[in-house]
């Protein structure tokens, strides 16, 4: 049961065009495979396929450095924020830096949640209009 769930997850992670066209067939083949040894081989094949489809076939290789850069921005921004928070906490007379950091984190979470809700609503609205 676990390999099947894992295989489904691997298929789900494939690029949508490939998954939409061949995903069901690949899962059907997996279900037809009886021995556990063969199933592990299919899992390895599915993982290789995942890498192949994203890195070689999707034409989106440029997104990788961009994603890495985006990933780096978060800790860099966090580190840069510490002196600003220190200064703000002394100005606002908040007793500990930790309390201000928690407050900032909560505000950031709120902003992220609102952004997500707005993005999804906008995307759905756009899809409906296209349909």
């Amino acid at each position, binding site marked *: 049961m676990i390999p099947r769930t894992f295989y489904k997850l691997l298929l789900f992670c494939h690029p949508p065009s*490939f998954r939409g066209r*061949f995903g069901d*067939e690949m899962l059907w083949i997996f279900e037809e495979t009886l021995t556990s040894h063969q199933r592990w081989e299919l899992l390895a094949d599915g993982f290789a396929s995942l890498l192949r489809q994203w890195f070689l076939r999707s034409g989106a290789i440029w997104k990788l450095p961009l994603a890495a850069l985006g990933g780096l921005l978060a800790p860099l921004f966090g580190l840069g924020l510490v002196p600003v928070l220190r200064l703000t906490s002394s100005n606002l007379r908040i007793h500990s830096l930790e309390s201000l950091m928690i407050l900032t984190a909560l505000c950031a979470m709120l902003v992220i949640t609102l952004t997500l809700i707005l993005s999804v609503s906008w995307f759905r609205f756009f899809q409906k209009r296209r349909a």
Partner: protein
Amino acid sequence: MMKEDLSPFLPLSPAVLHILLALAAEDRHGYGIMQEVARQSEGQYKLGPGTLYDNLQKLMNQGMVDEVPRTPDEDPRRRYYRLNTLGRRVLSADIHRLENVVHQAKRYLQTEGMGEA
């Protein structure tokens, strides 16, 4: 009649060669192709679904393989694939190329054997 230039498709990779060979006899679905490849190679060449469908997609984009229209009573997950005229020509061209390779190899190995004797 002008001879079609098939050189951009050649040489075929082992996976593509096996897939085209499996489809040369009859239309097959993905799992059928995998089983036929294992049978042809006597279990020496194993083709996983990831490799199979990656190559099938490429072959369909190149116009060598077509998807067979489904009948309503069939399992929707089971799609059949067919080798078309271009695919058959490319396969024949690659088999001809391989025959030349085997011929050359036999000639060289024979000469080598005679030299040793």
